C-alpha cells in the first residue's frame, strides 16, 4: 500500500470563468462576487473516480474542502492531516504539505494552478514526487498532468511500479502584468514529476537504449567540464541540468540564480545584472551556459532576465552554450528568445547546437 498525500486548493481556477486570470491574493473574493463557479470539485472527482486501484492507497488528506470532503464519501482509506480555518490560504497548503512529508508520504497529489505549485515547491522542494492536477487559471509551469483522467492513470502506474521522475519547471507569472496582457514570468523552482513512459511495443524499432534523466545530466556535465578552459568566466544559468555541472565540480550552486565559476572556483553567486557586469569587467573571456525552459523552449528572457541585453551584447551568441536532456528536447519544436531587445532577438534567430549528452549535440532552430 502506498501513502499518497492529497491537497486541494479550493479556490483555484475560479478567476478563469470571470476573466480574472488567476486567484492570487484576494482576487478570488472578487471572483465569487462576480459569480464564479468553483471548478475544483469536478476536477477532483474526475481524478478520484478514475483511480482503478483504490484499495492500494492510504490517502493523507488536508482537512475538509482541501481534500477530506472528496475522499470521505468514497472507498479510500484516509487520514486527515492538519487543521484549517474558514478561509484557506497558501500558508495552509505549505504547512500541510510539510506535515505530509513528515508522515513519509510516497507521492503528493495536488489540485491547483501555478500558484499552488509554487506553494508546494516552497514546502517540499524536490523531496517527493508530485502529481499535479491542472485546475488553475494560469498553468504555464510544466509540472501538470494533461487532465485529471491522465493523472489517475499516472497514480495507478505509480502504485504498481517505481516510476522515474523528471524535474519540471514551475513558473511564476506576474498576475498583475498578466491581467494587462503582458506575460512576465520567472523561473520559480522545480518539482519532481513521474515520467510516464508510454508502453513501448516489442519489436526492433522500439529497442531504444534508455538512460535516466539524471544520467543524462551527468553526461552533459562531463561534456561541458571536458571543454572548460582556464581563465574563462563561466556564467551558469538556472536549472538542475546546469547545476549538475557545479555538482561535479563540487561547487555549491543556487538552483534558480545565476552563478559564476572561474578556474573551477565559485566567483559569484545569485548574481544580478550589476554583479555580472562587474565580473565581465574583471575577466576577459566569458561564456554563458543555459538550459531551455521545458515545454516552452525559452533560452533567454524567461527565468534568467539577469542576462540583460547589455550583457548579451558583450558576451555574444557564439559564447552561449545551450544544454538540455534529450527528454526535455523531445518536447520542444524549437528554441525561443525574448530578451526585450529586438536586435538581439533577431541576432539569435537561426540554428544552434544544443549539448544533449557526452559528445552529443542536437541542431535546433531558435525563433524570436
Amino acid at each position: 500500500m502506498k501513502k499518497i498525500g492529497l491537497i486541494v486548493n479550493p479556490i483555484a481556477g475560479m478567476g478563469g470563468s470571470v476573466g480574472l486570470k488567476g486567484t492570487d491574493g484576494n482576487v478570488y473574493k472578487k471572483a465569487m462576487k462576480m459569480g464564479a463557479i468553483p471548478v475544483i470539485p469536478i476536477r477532483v472527482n474526475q481524478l478520484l473516480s478514475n483511480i482503478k486501484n483504490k484499495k492500494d492507497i492510504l490517502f493523507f488528506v488536508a482537512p475538509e474542502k482541501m481534500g477530506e470532503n472528496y475522499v470521505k464519501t468514497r472507498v479510500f482509506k484516509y487520514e486527515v492531516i492538519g487543521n484549517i480555518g474558514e478561509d484557506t490560504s497558501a500558508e495552509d497548503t505549505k504547512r500541510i504539505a510539510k506535515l505530509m512529508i513528515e508522515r513519509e508520504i510516497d507521492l503528493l497529489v495536488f489540485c491547483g494552478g501555478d500558484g499552488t505549485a509554487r506553494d508546494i515547491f516552497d514546502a517540499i522542494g524536490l523531496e517527493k514526487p508530485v502529481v499535479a492536477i491542472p485546475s488553475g487559471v494560469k498553468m504555464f509551469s510544466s509540472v501538470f498532468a494533461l487532465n485529471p483522467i491522465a493523472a489517475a492513470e499516472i497514480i495507478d502506474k505509480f502504485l504498481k511500479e517505481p516510476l522515474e521522475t523528471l524535474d519540471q519547471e514551475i513558473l511564476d507569472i506576474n498576475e498583475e502584468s498578466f491581467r494587462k496582457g503582458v506575460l512576465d514570468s520567472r523561473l520559480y523552482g522545480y518539482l519532481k514529476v513521474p515520467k510516464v513512459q508510454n508502453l513501448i511495443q516489442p519489436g526492433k524499432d522500439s529497442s531504444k537504449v534508455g538512460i535516466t534523466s539524471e544520467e543524462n545530466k551527468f553526461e552533459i556535465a562531463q561534456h561541458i567540464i571536458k571543454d572548460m578552459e582556464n581563465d574563462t568566466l563561466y556564467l551558469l544559468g538556472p536549472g538542475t541540468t546546469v547545476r549538475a555541472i557545479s555538482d561535479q565540480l563540487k561547487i555549491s550552486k543556487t538552483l534558480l540564480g545565476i552563478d559564476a565559476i572561474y578556474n573551477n572556483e565559485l566567483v559569484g553567486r545569485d548574481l544580478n545584472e550589476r554583479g555580472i557586469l562587474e565580473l565581465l569587467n574583471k575577466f576577459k573571456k566569458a561564456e554563458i551556459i543555459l538550459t531551455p525552459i521545458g515545454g516552452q523552449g525559452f533560452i533567454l528572457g524567461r527565468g534568467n532576465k539577469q542576462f540583460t541585453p547589455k550583457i548579451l551584447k558583450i558576451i555574444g551568441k557564439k559564447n552561449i552554450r545551450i544544454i538540455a536532456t534529450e527528454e526535455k528536447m523531445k518536447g520542444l519544436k524549437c528554441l525561443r528568445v525574448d530578451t526585450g531587445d529586438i536586435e538581439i532577438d533577431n541576432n539569435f534567430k537561426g540554428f544552434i547546437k544544443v549539448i544533449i549528452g557526452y559528445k552529443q549535440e542536437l541542431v535546433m532552430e531558435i525563433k524570436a
Partner: protein
Amino acid sequence: MLIRLDRNEMPRSPPKEIIEVVKLSLNKIHRYTPQYEVDILVNLLSDYTKAPQDSIILSSGSDILIKEFIYLFSRGRQIVIADPTFILISNTAPKTSSPILKVRLKEPEFKFYLESIIDEIKKPTLMILDNPNNPTGSLILNEKDVKMILENEKIIFLIDEAYFEFSNITYSHMIKDYPNLAIVRTLSKSFGLAGSGIGYIIAGEIIQQKFLGLNIMLPYPSVIAGINALKNQDYMLNYINEVAQEKYRITKYVSKLGIIAFPSSTNFLLMKTNIYNIGKKLEEQGVFVLDLSSQIGPGYIRVSIGTKAENDYFLKTMERIK
C-alpha cells in the same frame, strides 16, 4: 483480434509460387548456401537497381550492414544523423567513440535543414540519413542537397533507402560519380520478405573494399526467396498501389477525428493525436502501433498500413478511444 501495425511489414505473405520454391529449398537445408545462387541474387539486384554487380554488397538484413557501416567509418569522424531517425541508427551511433551531431527535423514537413550544418560537415564526417525518414515518412533529401553534401571529400555518406519502392526516389545512380556515397536497401518492406532478412548496399569501390572481410552467409531459403521475389515483381507493385490508396483513405478518415496523419512516402503513417497514452490504449484493444512518445513526443504514433480489414479495425478503434 490482434493486429500488428507496428513493424512496417507487408500484411500478407508473398505469392504462392514464391512460398512453394522456398519450401523446396528446405530440402537442401543441410548444405551451405551455394555461391551460384548468391551470384544469381546479386545479378538480379544489379538489374533491379541498375547498379554494377560489384557495387552490391549483400547481407542478412540491412540492420547488420548499417551497424557495420557505422563501426567501419565512424573512426576519426563525427557522426551526423537526423532527429528523429531509424532507431537502429540513433542507437548504434553512441556505441562508437565519435561525437554525434543530430539535426532536428522540423514539423510539420519534417525538413532536413542542410544549411544549419553546412560548416559543421567540413570536418571529417560520417553522415547517415534515412530517406524517406523513419518514423516521419517524409523525404528529407533532394538531389541538390545530396550533391552539396558529397562535394565535400571528407564525408562518407550513407543513405538508408529501406522504403525506396514507396517513394520512388533514389540516389543510387550517384555512386558512379561519388565514391564517398553508399545506399542501403532491403527486401523486407516492399517485397514482403521481412522474415528472410535480405539487405544490400550499393556503393563505390572505396566502400566495397572496406566490406571485403564481412562475408556474411545468407540462409539458403532467404536467397531463394529473394531471387523469386525479384523475378515476380508484380506483387510488389500491386502492394505499393494498395498502400498508396489506403494511406489516402486513412489520412482522410483520421482527420475527421481531429488526428493529423502527416504525408508519407512509405508504408506507414506518422500520426499526431492528443490522446493520452494512445499506444497503450490501442494495445488494450489488440492493435499494436509504434508509440513515439519517447522519440517525438506524447501522442505521436507510427502506424503501418495493414490490409483493408486491419486498417478498418484500427480506424474503428481510434474512433472508440477518441
